[in-house]
Each structure stands twice: as C-alpha cells, then as structure tokens.
C-alpha cells in the first residue's frame, strides 16, 4: 500500500534496506527540484525489475514521472530519456540482479557515452523477489536457493567495473544513513554525466548483512563498511583503485571526472552541421 493508492499491494519486508534508500531518494529529489527550480514532474525515475524497482510506486508526496520497464534495461531506457530531454533529471533505480547480471551489457557502452543521469543501485547480494537466488554480488561459497551447495563462481566487484568502464561519478554507501546517502545522490544528480551511487541495501529475509556491514561492538567484530578518508582525492584514478582494493564497503565518493556529456558533443555537431528537410529533399532531385 502506498500513501496515494490504497489498492496498491506491493510491500517491502520489515527492515529492508530499500526503505532507507527511498528516504534518501525522496530527499535528494526534493533538494534538486528546489535548488534548480524545476517542476517536480521534470524528475523521471526509470526502475528495474526486482524488489528495488517498486521504489517508483512507493515514493511519498508529489510524484515524479516513472517508467517501470523490463528486467535489465534501465540504462538503455534512461539513455533514451536523458538524451532526448536533457532538461529532465533522469534517475535509474535498480538492484544488483537487474543492473549487474541481465543488464550488465549496457554499463560499458553507456559509460563511454557519458549521458547525464544518476543511477542508484541497491545491492543486497541476492535475488529477493524470486526468493533468494545467487546474484552477481553474492559471495563465493554463499548458500542460496540456486546454490544449495555454495556459490561456485567469483563474486563480482561492481566498483572496480564502474571505474574501469569510465563511469564519471562513482560513490559507494549503505542504506543505514539516509541523510548522508541523500547528499551523495544529490551530488550525483548535479554531476554532468553518468553517476552511479552503489548502495549496500540488505535483504532482511534472504541475505541479512547489516551486522557484517556495521560490525558488532558487543562481540568486537569490525564492520566491513568504512568511511572514505577526507584526504582521498576522487579525481585520482590510482587512488580510487587503491581505495576499492582495500576491500570492504567504502562509504563516500570514490571517483569523479568531468568529460563532456553525449548531449554536449551532439550540440556542437548540430551547430556545425544542421540540416533541414527541404534541403535534404531537394538533394534527390533529378
């Protein structure tokens, strides 16, 4: 049930990390809409298929536009929106299964074009909606319903991939601190180019990693999540590689550069080569 639709019957499980991401996204959209004085309806959310994709139906308050499409295709749909309407705030919400498995083929070419859009990836290391199968970010050896004797293949390292593909804004965080997460999402929206905010968003039913991320003071177990040091230079590619190679889950901005967007480049072309239909037609005269 959502605030505006009593008939809507989708629910996240209690404690789902996606609740935190939802609050962060609502806040970031609010800030962006106010700061840039755009209509709320100039925000467009392209949602993947999976638990996290339902975000697009669950936002509180005045609604942004949304597309709840097909599995794995958020990036090409968003590319169409963003390049056709560079005035819009184009946002992708997807999970690790949608974005990194079936949709992985779209990350490299999209990164090389640098369209202006912001992707929020909710990584819970499992396929939740289909009830607990192995995802690209499940750990090797992990028991899931589709790996009953332990996952055989290697765990994917998404931050490393984003960096090597040339994604121009890469941040990593978790769902437990929505206000801080909102700032990184907002920065990603402001960044002119492809931004990915990769969020650890635990699945309380099939892969509850809260304790692993945060650690336990009581049992003296350190968490895998750590705050990125202030002296990390996000424009330094080698420093970004070193940061990712530390292992664990960095919380903060990993990498940022500002190459031209695909629309910048196309605008330049239009200025130089613009054509109209009458001239084209007359080029076929006999």
């Amino acid at each position, binding site marked *: 049930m*959502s605030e*505006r*639709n009593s*008939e*809507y*019957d*989708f629910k996240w499980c209690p404690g789902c990390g996606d609740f935190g991401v939802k609050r962060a996204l609502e806040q970031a959209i609010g800030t962006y809409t106010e700061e840039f004085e*755009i*209509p*709320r*309806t*100039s925000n*467009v959310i*392209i949602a993947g298929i999976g638990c996290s994709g*339902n975000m*697009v*139906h669950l936002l509180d308050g005045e*609604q*942004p*536009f*949304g*597309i*709840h*499409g*097909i599995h794995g*295709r958020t990036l*090409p*749909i*968003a*590319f*169409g*929106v*963003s*390049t*056709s*309407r560079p*005035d*819009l705030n184009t946002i992708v919400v997807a999970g690790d299964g949608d974005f990194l498995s079936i949709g992985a*083929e*779209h990350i490299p*070419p999209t990164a090389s*074009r640098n369209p202006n859009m912001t992707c929020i990836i909710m990584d819970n290391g499992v396929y939740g909606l289909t009830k607990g199968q192995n995802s690209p970010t499940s750990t090797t050896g992990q028991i899931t319903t589709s790996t009953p004797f332990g996952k055989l293949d290697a765990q994917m390292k998404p931050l490393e991939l984003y960096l090597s593909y040339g994604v121009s804004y890469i941040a990593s965080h978790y769902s437990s601190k929505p206000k801080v997460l909102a700032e990184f999402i907002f920065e990603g929206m402001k960044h002119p180019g492809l931004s990915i905010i990769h969020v650890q968003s635990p699945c309380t039913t099939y892969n509850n990693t809260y304790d692993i991320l945060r650690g336990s003071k009581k049992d003296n177990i350190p968490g895998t999540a750590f705050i990125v040091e202030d002296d990390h230079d996000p424009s330094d590619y080698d420093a970004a590689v070193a940061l990712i190679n530390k292992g664990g889950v960095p919380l903060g901005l990993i990498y940022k550069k500002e190459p031209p967007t*695909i*629309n910048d480049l*196309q605008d330049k*072309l*239009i200025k130089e*080569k*613009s*054509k*109209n*239909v*009458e001239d*084209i*037609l007359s080029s*076929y*005269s*006999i």
Partner: protein
Amino acid sequence: MTQKVKSKDFVIRFAGEGGQGLVTSADAMARAATGAGFYCQTFSTFPSQIMGGPASSQVRISTTPVLSNGDAVDVLVVLNQYAFDNHIEDLSENGVCIYNAQDCEPSGEGNFFGINADELAKESGNTRAANMVILGAVANLIDFKIESIENFVKERFSRGRENDDEIIKSNIVAIGLGVDVAKKSGFSVGSLDEPIAPDYEQIMITGNAALSLGALAAGLDSYYGYPISPATTILIWMEQNLISKDKFVFQVSSEIEAINNIIGSGFSGKKAMTATAGPGVALMSEGLGLAWMSEIPCTVIDIQRGGPATGLPTKTEQSDLFACMFPAHGDVKLPVIAPGSVEECFHAGSLAINWAERYQGPVMVMGEMSLAERTENIKKPDITQVIDERRNSDTGSNGYKRYQDWNGELSPMPIPGGEVAYVANGSEHDEIGDTTHLPKHHVRLTERRFAKLSLLNDSPFEIENPESEIAVMPWGATKGVAREAFDKISDKGVNLTWLYSMALNPLPEEIMDQLKSKKLVIVPELNFQGQWSSILRMDGIKAVSVTQYTGLPFKPTYLSEKILEKIKETEV
C-alpha cells in the same frame, strides 16, 4: 525476323564480382535514363562480404512507370566466366549479352559479343572509363540516345575541379568507342521509344531513403539504431540528416538497446524510431511488449532479409510477418505498415510515426531488401502536405489517470515536465500506472490496448473489380510485381478483384468487407509458410498463398502463371 521490335521496356543487367562497379553502372544507366524522361527501377543482389563474390545489379528502363524488376534480361553484361555461365539463361529470346573479353570466353555461337573495355578505356585517355565504354555499347543495343548518356556524364563530372572538362571529354570518347564495338557486332535488341515524360516533378531515391525522409518530414525527433543489413542505410541516413535543434541520433550497442532507447525517448515526448532486420526484431521482442503494455509511442522499421538466424543477410524475403505482427509474449498484435513501392515508403515513414503518437504505442513498418535498396524515380513528395501529428498530451484534466477505460478516445498521455506525472508500467497496472494483479484491471486494460487500434483507420488501400469472387491480394514489396501479373491475367480475359492495403493491421474496413465476401483470396508472398494468408484465415477469410522462398523477388510472368494454377487447383 517476325519478332516485333521491342520499344517500351528494357531490362539491363550487369553481372560480375562485388566491387567491380556493377551497382555504379546500373545506377548510371538509370540516372541517364531518368534524366531523359524515362521511368526506372534498379535491383541488386550480392553476397554478404565487402569485396568479391558473385553479384549483379540491373536496371529496368521503361516509357511508363515501372512496377517490378521484370522478366527476362534484354541486355546482359558479364564481367567474368562465372557470371556468363550463371546469368545467360536469364537472357530473353532476342536479348544480347556483352562479355568482358579479358576474363571470359564463351564457347560456341549465340547472341553475344566480346568487348575489351579496359583497353578501349586506355585508348580514350582515361583508364577509369571502362564502365563508360560498356554503357556506350549497351546504349547502342537498345538505340538509346547517346546524348542522354553524355548529358549524364557532363552533370556527374562537373564538380568544379580544374580537370572537369578533360574527364568529361575522355568519358565521352569512351562512350563513343563502346558504341562502335556494338555497331560492329551487328546486334540490336530494339529501339527505345521517346518517353512519355511525367508532368510532375520527380526525385530519384531508394526505398530506405524515402522511408527516412518521410519520417523526418512528419517530425521525427530521435533515432537510435544498430547496423544490420539491409537496414544499415537508414542508420547512415539518419546520422547524416537528423541533425538539428532538439533532435538526437545515435548508434547504440545492440537492438536491445535501440528498442529501449526509443521507449525512453517516446515516453519523454519525442517521435522516436529505429530500424533493423529480422535478427534485430527478435532481440526487440521483449521491448516491443513493453511499449505495447505501457503504451509508449515508438516506431520500428524491419527491413526484411531471408531466413531465420543470420539467414540470407543480403537477399529479399517476406518472412518476418508473424514476428512483426505478434512480436512479443502475452496478448499483443502490433500495427503493421508494409509499403508496396518506393513512393509508398515515403508515406509509410510519415504514417507510422503519426500512428504511434495517435494510438500511443509501438508501430511496425515492414520493408524488404529488394525495396529498400532499389533506386526509383518517383513523384516528388509535397512535404507541406505531410502532417506532424502529436499525441494528446493535454494534462491536468484527468489527474494521474493515464490508463482509463477505452471509451472511443484515449486518455491523454502526460509528458515529463508537465502538470501531472504517472508511471509507465510494463507490469499490469491500474489507472495511475501502479502495479496490480487484480483481474478487473487486467481485463480492462487488455481490452483498452486492443480497442484503441481502431483509431488507425486512415491507411491507403486499393480495390478494383470488386464484383469478382476471386481476389488477388499482395502485401508489401510484392505489390508491384503482383500488379504486373494481375494485368497480364486481366489481358487474358480472366476477371479478378485487386485488393491492396498498405496497412496489414489494422485492415481498413472496406478491405475487410471485400476479403470476407470472396470465395478465394490469392496472396502472392515471399515466404514458405504463407504468413499473410495464414493471418487472414484467422479472421475466417478463404485465403491461400502463392509462395516463393528463393531469396529473390517474383518475376511477373511466372507469378501470373502460378496465380492461374492456384485458381485451377482450388476449383472455386
């Protein structure tokens, strides 16, 4: 000789290896002829490789508008022995073959003579003028005015360069040398009459370029595509021409990307299009279902080639109809527009993107290789008459309710940045676009998605001789050759109804009424299963197909015989 001298219609074919300038020669002949007021249609067939391999290109020149590639070849030019061996049987009874004396030595005697074009080109002072030598010889055989070819040469080589005059002069010398050889051979194929020049302005254009131009004239905003034969020329055309403010064109990484790109673009308020061939349609399947389900305007052009999988990438076939009309899982039947001529390609391009806007959903356009790549002189389209129809985006009046019940008109489609927002949902949804599993919504919206097709009721169609009980109904690019076959049958005194519709879904009511009233509907089509007649039979129409699945178009005389055989077989 008692044979009547041919005077109105000639087929000239150049056969050899890919990369030998075959298409250039056929194109030059076509341009020289259209410049002189004749009607032309070209056709090429080549293997899927950059250079080499057996290939041929032909032009049919006529004093009246050309409907098909024609039957036998009147003048055959072969550049090697393989081409001679494989094309000579296509030569008409009184046709003449010119062979390249350097690479070809036909045995025995027949209607053929050799020409050493390279040597004669050297003699002309321009080693690159070998094809002009041959054009001169061809022109002489059909008694085509040499001045017309010379005029073509003058125009082609007046490029504002210092040596223009020199090049023009040597090419004209080369043409003359070719004429001399043909004269010496003593052969003649006929004598081309003066053309009945059209009283309207013309353009010379390929099917794919006409389609692209039609879409642009109707306000196309964005194009996303992936290279694939024989649709690549549309991508190239768009990259060269869809360049102006607020427009966007881009080569993306796959057909899966392309379909989802145009869904995003269409959702955001733009008229968006992609073009592909069969393999790409297969990859777009799920995306087309999304566009249908979430009701997003977009247009997909399928330029058909042959066979499943990689099939015959450079041949022609009409075997994607099932895949285009029923591309997706679930209950889906897409609007399909299949232009029958180069001129119709222009109108199909405009109509498709307007239909997508009007019914708020995906539209398929089906071309095929033989139509896409052929050059034809057509009436210059009046672009001031082309309508740029846009979706009803009147927002604010119905709140979030994007998907209301069908009541003869569609609820408006809000555009991002406007008054109100909604979610375009590929899951079954309620009025505002939220996901639902309730039966009432699935029933209501399934019915809405089919009912709104009735808005697409303005496609062109043809009905002639409605009183006969037997009809011929071709579709797509088979239209022209079917018409020629139909006319041959009529000339024999057999009275049939002619039915044609540029749209295959939805069919115009008048066409549907005609189809249902017939005892037999014969569908000539280039596929094994008889796809269009199968679909017609789903509606209870007594349709049967005359099929061909060679990767080549029908020939008119052969087709007319097959239609008559079919009538006998079914004994109506």
